[in-house]
């Protein structure tokens, strides 16, 4: 049973190798990638059920015992993230196949879209399952290397220009992460997360705090938390639609996941809480104000993405179980809905050739299905009941009220304001792009590819479905949050003999 834990990393990697071998044969490449991701999703679902019932699963890669060897750990949080991420990556893959987003042709030596996409998935799953800090770093590097290739796909001037900023910023973030890894090892002599949980407690307070802050900066850049978020709205929108969608949905959340993991397991307690709450508030506010000012749909959505990262950091910053429950629920909700919104935007671009709000108009009449898809996802993002966005925000705001104190109350107010501004942004896009008379952008008469529409519908339906399964989902997130807060289930699973 434990061997299953390695599969979510192994399957996409093997798939990547296989698709590389298939070189330019388009159809076999598609079959292999879809099969790999579907299998990953199935394994992730099994892992989630298993961890929910019986606690964390651990596999020691290479057979070396825990503090020395590399371990992969699937606890409830990791398993839940795996399920959501593989469902989303599968949907986006189908969408990109529908769009013909593959560079396989007679002239290309090797078609790289599918292999790179699978490596990206493997990096994401590896980061979720990593049981030690260095393996987490490797997971990040895998997904980064793949994302570099995807964001500069085809090497057009605009993508090279924005891609170079993205590449440099992310390499810098990795370097800060690597410095923290080196310092953590020098200070404690271990990198295993469970082992670190013991050893870090013994360090002097100042040293411990500086290590915590360095890791926070590194993950803050990846998660696009406010003062470190300027790179995101500039680089994401130029990539191909499915690539932007999967980046927006997943990559920032891997950063958020890393923050959750390190803040709860390695540095428990409210030491950085005030800092996290302040940056959470600023992230929400600055992000959404940026979105209000945008006139391009993709850039606008990138700013809402930054803004809503603030909600998750808010939940983490409360450092209570209720806050963590809200944050984890919000991560799940936001991965699906933000990806869905970018996919809808991709459909708009496919239909009209533009995502510029000044060019668009009358989409609700031209293509009613697009209108429905956008409306449902946008209302979901803004947090209108009964959608999951409402439940997620409600959970977070309740946790904030329960925590009490001036800072959480300010954050509750800011959260409500951000939600209202998101509603404003959503209705602005709706009334400009969908409701007014058709704009200069001419709608294509060619019908949209069925697979693209199907994948988008599936993802929007998944976002709505989160409301239906909100009860069980809250059970899982509560279980995950309680485990994180107690720390002992994770530590005992990795180091069965207790303190080594």
């Amino acid at each position, binding site marked *: 049973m434990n061997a299953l834990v390695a599969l979510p990393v192994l399957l996409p990697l093997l798939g990547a190798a296989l698709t590389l071998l298939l070189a330019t044969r388009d159809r076999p490449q598609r079959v292999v990638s879809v099969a790999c991701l579907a299998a990953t999703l199935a394994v992730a679902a099994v892992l989630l059920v298993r961890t929910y019932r019986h606690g964390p699963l651990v596999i020691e890669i290479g057979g070396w015992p825990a503090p*020395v060897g590399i371990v992969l750990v699937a606890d409830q949080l990791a398993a839940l993230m795996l399920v959501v991420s593989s469902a989303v990556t599968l949907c986006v893959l189908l969408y990109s196949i529908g769009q013909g987003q593959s560079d396989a042709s007679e002239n290309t030596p090797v078609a790289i879209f599918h292999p790179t996409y699978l490596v990206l998935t493997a990096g994401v799953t590896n980061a979720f399952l990593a049981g030690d800090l260095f393996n987490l770093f490797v997971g990040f590097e895998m997904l980064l290397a793949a994302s570099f290739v995807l964001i500069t796909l085809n090497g057009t001037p605009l993508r*090279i220009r924005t891609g170079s900023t993205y590449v*440099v910023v992310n*390499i810098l973030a990795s370097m800060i992460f690597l410095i923290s890894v080196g*310092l953590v090892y020098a200070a404690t002599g271990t*990198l295993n997360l469970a082992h670190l949980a013991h050893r870090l407690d013994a360090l002097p307070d100042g040293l411990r705090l500086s290590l915590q802050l360095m890791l926070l900066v590194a993950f803050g850049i990846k998660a696009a938390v406010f003062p470190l978020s300027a790179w995101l709205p500039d680089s994401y929108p130029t990539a191909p639609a499915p690539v932007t969608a999967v980046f927006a949905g997943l990559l920032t959340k891997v950063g958020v996941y890393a923050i959750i993991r390190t803040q709860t397991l390695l540095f428990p307690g409210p030491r950085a809480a005030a800092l996290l709450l302040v940056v959470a508030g600023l992230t929400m506010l600055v992000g959404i104000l940026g979105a209000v000012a945008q*006139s391009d749909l993709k850039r606008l959505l990138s700013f809402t993405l930054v803004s809503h990262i603030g909600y998750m950091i808010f939940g983490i910053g409360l450092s209570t179980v209720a806050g963590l429950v809200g944050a984890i629920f919000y991560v799940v909700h936001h991965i699906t809905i933000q990806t869905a919104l970018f996919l809808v935007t991709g459909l708009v671009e496919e239909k009209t050739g533009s995502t510029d709000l000044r060019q668009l108009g009358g989409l609700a009449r031209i293509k009613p299905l697009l209108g429905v898809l956008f409306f449902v996802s946008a209302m979901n993002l803004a947090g209108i009941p009964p959608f999951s966005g409402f439940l997620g925000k409600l959970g977070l705001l309740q946790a904030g009220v329960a925590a009490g104190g001036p800072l959480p109350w300010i954050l509750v107010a800011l959260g409500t304001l951000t939600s209202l501004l998101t509603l404003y942004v959503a209705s602005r896009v709706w009334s400009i792009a969908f409701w007014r008379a058709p704009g200069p952008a001419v709608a*294509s008469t060619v019908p949209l590819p069925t697979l693209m529409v199907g994948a988008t519908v599936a993802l929007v339906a998944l976002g709505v479905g989160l409301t239906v399964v909100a009860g069980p989902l809250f059970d899982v997130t509560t279980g995950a949050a309680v485990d994180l807060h107690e720390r002992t289930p994770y530590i005992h699973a990795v180091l069965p003999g207790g303190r080594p």
Partner: protein
Amino acid sequence: MSASGANLVSFVAIGVLVGCGVTLLLERSLIRVLLGIVMAGNGVNLLIIFGGRSGRAPVVGVPGTGAMSDALPQAMVLTAIVITFGFTAFLLAISYRSWYLTGDDDVPDDLEDQQIVRRAAAKEVSTADLSDERADSDSEQVDAPAPRRPHRGEGPE
């Protein structure tokens, strides 16, 4: 944790490497940025090496395990070197492509900055909400809209 082999010289070396790296990172030219990343990356690698205990080669079977160096940071640094190597190659490719397309490899101002500067110069507000003013005469539009991908069964391709 353990006696490390670090001394003043090694710390100065790390400091100089990372310091020069950061200075180069602040440049506009991608090649200089790349050199900065390589220098800072090597500084970080040294830092990790000195994080572990120094000593003799850690070979199994050789007596005196107490005097052996810590093998774990060395293994990590190998991984980090490989990763830096890959990223360096990729950045080189990017800067070559950038030079090929535009004649230089400078990183330009970001779009938001350019738009705000233009708007401020023209003293104008966003026109997206005004349905009768279209984008044609809009000086705000710095980024030309992406050319539309021809659909299958449409156009020559």
